[in-house]
């Protein structure tokens, strides 16, 4: 009776279960594949739930043995680039968003809305359009295959998104609360640091999370701008499989590893996003 959408309860659960099966099954498949031998993979197909094989640790031996260094390098690079670039994008994005939300800009004919549009419009540009030029530019200044170059590229890639998300959040923080801090005797920087940023926490968390996802999942930038030293996990995996007969068991195992960091990020940041920080401050 309380629901806004009045389907019978059973129907709702059935629909959710159908989608749940569809959504989860590939993940499930990946997990069991990671415990198969090459032979078992090519033994199929079997009947649901496809558990009729002898579990093997072949893939994990490779992951922790022969391929360990490559995988660690990829994992380390991905983690480094994603987390650092997301942090920079969120910090720069927060400041820009604060500016766009609180001040009036006038650069020739360009006002606040035009500026936000300019910044956000970069997101419209398919990376392929820029990537050739970027490749050339990076090569010229020696940023190809360097951590700094990748962090720069990902920051560029994510900044429009963080500005976009955070502007809205900054606008929602009541001006009066900032004014109250001024009245209480604090200067602008203290106002932002002690009051504005804590209140933008759900936005900061969401922006960080999305930035992290996008960098973590990126393939095309890494493909173009790295060779060896700075390869990210997706590139490492691609290299592992660049053979006639892909080692699916191994890729699945690495895939499991690849899901863990974003999952952890979600679990950690989810509570910040849920928090209703603004609740109670104003009437």
């Amino acid at each position, binding site marked *: 009776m309380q629901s806004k959408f009045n389907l019978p309860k059973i129907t709702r659960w059935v629909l959710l279960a159908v989608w749940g099966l569809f959504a989860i099954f590939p993940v499930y498949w990946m997990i069991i594949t990671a415990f198969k031998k090459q032979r078992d993979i090519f033994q199929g197909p079997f009947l649901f739930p496809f558990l009729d094989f002898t579990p093997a640790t072949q893939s994990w031996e490779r992951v922790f043995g022969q391929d360990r260094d490559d995988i660690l390098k990829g994992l380390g690079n991905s983690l480094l680039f994603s987390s650092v670039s997301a942090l920079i994008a969120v910090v720069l994005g927060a400041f820009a968003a604060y500016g766009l939300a609180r001040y009036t800009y006038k650069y020739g004919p360009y006002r606040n809305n035009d500026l936000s549009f300019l910044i956000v419009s970069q997101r419209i540009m398919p990376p392929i359009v820029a990537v050739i030029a970027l490749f050339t530019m990076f090569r010229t200044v020696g940023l190809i295959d360097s951590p700094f170059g990748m962090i720069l590229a990902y920051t560029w890639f994510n900044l429009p998104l963080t500005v976009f998300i955070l502007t809205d959040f900054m606008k929602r923080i009541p001006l009066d609360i900032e004014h109250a801090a*001024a*009245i209480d005797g604090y200067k602008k920087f203290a106002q932002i640091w002690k009051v504005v940023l804590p209140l933008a926490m759900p936005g900061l968390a969401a922006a960080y999370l999305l930035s992290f996802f996008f960098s973590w999942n990126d393939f095309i930038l890494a493909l173009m701008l790295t060779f060896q030293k700075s390869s990210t996990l997706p590139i490492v995996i691609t290299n592992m499989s660049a053979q006639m007969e892909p080692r699916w068991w191994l890729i699945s195992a690495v895939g499991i590893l690849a899901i863990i960091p974003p999952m952890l990020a979600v679990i950690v940041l989810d509570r910040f996003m849920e928090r209703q920080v603004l609740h109670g401050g104003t*009437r």
Partner: protein
Amino acid sequence: MSSVKLEALTKKYGDNLAISNLNLECQQGEFIVLLGRPGAGKSTTLKLIANIEELSSGNIYFNDQLINNIPTENRNVAMAFESYALYPHWTVRKNLEFPLKAPGRNIPAAEQEARIRRVAELLEIAHLLDRKPSQLSGGQRQRVSLGRALVRPASVTLLDEPIAHLDARLRHSLRGELKQYQREQNATTFYTTPDYVEATAIADKIAVLIDGQVRQFATPEVVYDEPADIEVATIVGDPKMNILPLAPGATRLEINEAWLQLPPLPPEAGYIGIRPVNIQIFENAHPYAIRGTVYVTEPMGYEQVIRVEAGEQLLNIKTLLTTGTFSIGQTVWLQPDWTTIHVFDRSGQRLKGGFH
């Protein structure tokens, strides 16, 4: 603890004049109430004093020093916001502590604690100190916001409708305590409200704000007894003062085929005002009375307000319930007490002179 002088303050939002040429001067320690309807410019005036809003023109002096260019954080003003503007991520205690810990204040920890305790007791929020604003009711939040403004010494205290959302009991008890507290602190206070009862009860002096200008600046008694113009007269008093237009040079008032002889009035008189308590109401035809139809009745405890349609006018009458019971549509007779009327000229300005 400063005297304050506002000189020709003007604030424009685009083409919109929120405050136009507002002048006001008050002594150190005075309790000033800005009274006006929503949108009259009360909050804006406070925000100009705090420099939260930028002046379009005019000057502000604290203790005869021009402070136009001093930023908010250095003005040493305390303020309770109409929107409360609490720090939602902190407990009540931290909210109250924040102004005491600001750079340059150097208040010893013991004194901080004592101040917080004093204010928390005054406002009956001592038991809430460890809660966050989201766990408080609206009235409790408003008291915390008031507490944050009162907890520290300030040149000027600005209170923007600070008790509007409290329940009746607290509103009544806090009014007096608040004034007493500010008097002890010798704090210059600006207080806004749309409620004339609150204003007359608490103010040393009331500034009636209409359209961004001070229409009258005087003690509560003077504002009530000698309102400067019709608009001031209708803001101060509930139900509103009845305003009756006069024909030029009229010697009598004609309503519903009956007429009332007017007392001698100056020739420039354009309107007369009669407070609702100064009209008598009768159930039966009565000499020297005009006829009307009851529009609605509102009993309230010992008293009742009766609105009566008489000619073009809807007149408010306030009387004791024991006067009689009236029902909608009933015909009644009204008789004003001419000795208590207010007289205004055609432009609505009060006419000086002893008409009562």
